[in-house]
């Protein structure tokens, strides 16, 4: 249901920039604590009707939805099972469905939006302005949709036990040899944030971190007004699994520092995580901005608390190829001349059967250059792979669906 203005009865929405509720009709601001939630019973939860019955379709892909009534215009709204806050499609009223929250576990805390919709768009424009390889069409974007969504998170404290088997390279004489290591240890993770919505990829939600958890407030439905939100849909075991995966990743990241070798890798690990009982179910804010480029959708996320932007953009191929080619051609002149001289001297020394030391020194220099260029090539491949993976994440249909399901 929508929270109504005491003065005129208009619907109230939460304004992050003022940290207050705002009446769109009369322009009055109210502090969140001043608003009573007294009209919950108006929103009577009606019998859940299956999507099949509503749409008259046998499509097995349709989801079962629940029906709620907008207390502003009387329209009936069908809402996804895991959704708790949405707009009424008929009157645009921010209809916050409290009865759904009450039926499921109510969040204990909420981190209100502190970045407004306009701020989010400005942040994106500013970042794009300085992005050298982002195409002009993207820089001058017109957002198709900007949606503020409260993402459900579990904030947990956990004891973690891990046994890791590692390998590393150690110098022995002139060569490097592989050595193996065993490490077993325990550590304690505090305030670990775990995305509790299966519909949103953890790969994306993890990048939204960090959130300022000191600014968490006790959950109040009024903060939801004007935004969308999801509910936790993870089972207890899935929360433990999710925590275990995160803790294992971070343990692996840390344990390599304890190994006296280079190029250290964790070959295998046996993680075990035990969650404390004090876990908090909280709603954390994010803006989802959808733009279109060459017919493909891009979904950019902005942390609604810190303004951190998460997204990877397609690049201006013409610009990239031109600049790379120019530099390659200019450098080629130098490297071809050097290579020619190098090979000439080398063949001269071999043909004269003298200067063996010089030849071996030159071969050694050649090996160093070869290794250095190999390292650069490896980093190029890794960067391209990372770029491609991140771009796939930004263009992911899953993320787009997560946002598009919230038809406002």
């Amino acid at each position, binding site marked *: 249901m929508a929270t109504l203005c005491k003065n005129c009865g208009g619907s109230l929405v939460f304004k992050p920039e003022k940290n207050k509720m705002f009446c769109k009709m009369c322009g009055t601001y109210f502090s969140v604590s001043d608003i009573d939630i007294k009209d919950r019973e108006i929103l009577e939860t009606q019998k859940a009707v299956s999507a099949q019955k509503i*749409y008259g379709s046998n499509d097995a892909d349709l989801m079962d939805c629940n*029906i709620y009534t907008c207390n502003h215009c009387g329209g009936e709204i069908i809402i*996804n099972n895991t959704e708790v806050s949405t707009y009424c499609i008929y009157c645009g009223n921010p209809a916050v469905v409290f009865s759904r929250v009450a039926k499921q576990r109510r969040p204990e805390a909420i981190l209100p939006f502190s970045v407004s919709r306009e701020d989010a768009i400005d942040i994106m424009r500013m970042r794009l302005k300085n*992005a050298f*390889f982002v195409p002009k069409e993207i820089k001058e974007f017109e957002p198709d949709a900007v949606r503020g969504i409260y993402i459900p998170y579990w904030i947990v404290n956990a004891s973690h036990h891990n*046994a890791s*088997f590692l390998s590393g390279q150690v110098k022995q004489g002139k060569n490097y040899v592989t*050595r*193996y*290591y*065993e*490490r*077993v*240890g325990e550590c304690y*993770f*505090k305030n670990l944030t775990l995305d509790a919505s*299966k519909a949103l*990829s953890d790969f994306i939600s993890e*990048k939204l971190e960090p959130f300022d958890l000191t600014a968490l407030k006790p959950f109040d439905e009024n903060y939801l007004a004007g935004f969308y939100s999801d509910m936790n849909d993870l089972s207890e075991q899935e929360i433990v*699994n999710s925590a*275990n*995966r995160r803790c294992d990743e*971070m343990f692996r990241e*840390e344990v390599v520092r304890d190994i006296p070798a280079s190029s250290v890798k964790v070959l*295998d*690990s*046996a993680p075990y995580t035990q969650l404390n009982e004090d876990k908090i179910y909280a709603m954390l804010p994010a803006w989802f901005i959808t733009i279109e480029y060459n017919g493909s959708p891009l979904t950019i996320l902005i942390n609604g608390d810190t303004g*951190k*932007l*998460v997204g*990877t*953009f*397609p*690049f201006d191929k013409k610009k*990239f190829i031109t600049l*790379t*080619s120019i530099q*390659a051609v*200019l*450098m*080629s002149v130098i*490297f*071809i*001349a050097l*290579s020619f001289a190098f*090979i*000439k001297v080398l063949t001269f020394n071999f043909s004269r059967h003298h200067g063996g030391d010089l030849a071996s020194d030159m071969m050694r220099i050649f090996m160093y250059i070869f290794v250095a*260029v190999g390292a*650069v*090539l490896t980093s190029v491949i890794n*960067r391209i792979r*990372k*770029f491609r993976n*991140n771009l*796939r994440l930004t263009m*992911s*249909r*899953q993320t787009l669906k997560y946002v598009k*399901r919230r*038809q406002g």
Partner: protein
Amino acid sequence: MLGNIIILIISILLGGSIATILALGTWTKKLAKSNIMGDSAGGFDEFADRINYYHRRDNVGASEKDQFIRYFGREILREKGIEAPDMSYIDEEFPDDEDIPDVDIPLFKPLQ
């Protein structure tokens, strides 16, 4: 003469490759900096203080891995009275577009 031509061809291939790789190194670095935004998640230092190690062994054999993982993974916990549940990870390869069914029909629809 022929020798010089062969050396020149080799030099062009070698020098050209090195130059191309170095140029790619420069511009892919700039590309990543320019177009990948917010590619970081919270790390160990943000959530934990330090690891208390109670077993360290260096220069072990590669073949000891399975035995080590088996012993310290489950059996050591069992000795401590902890029965570790099956911690198989959530299968979340991205993009996992199949997880969510297409919803072409809007979720909002007036009832008759």
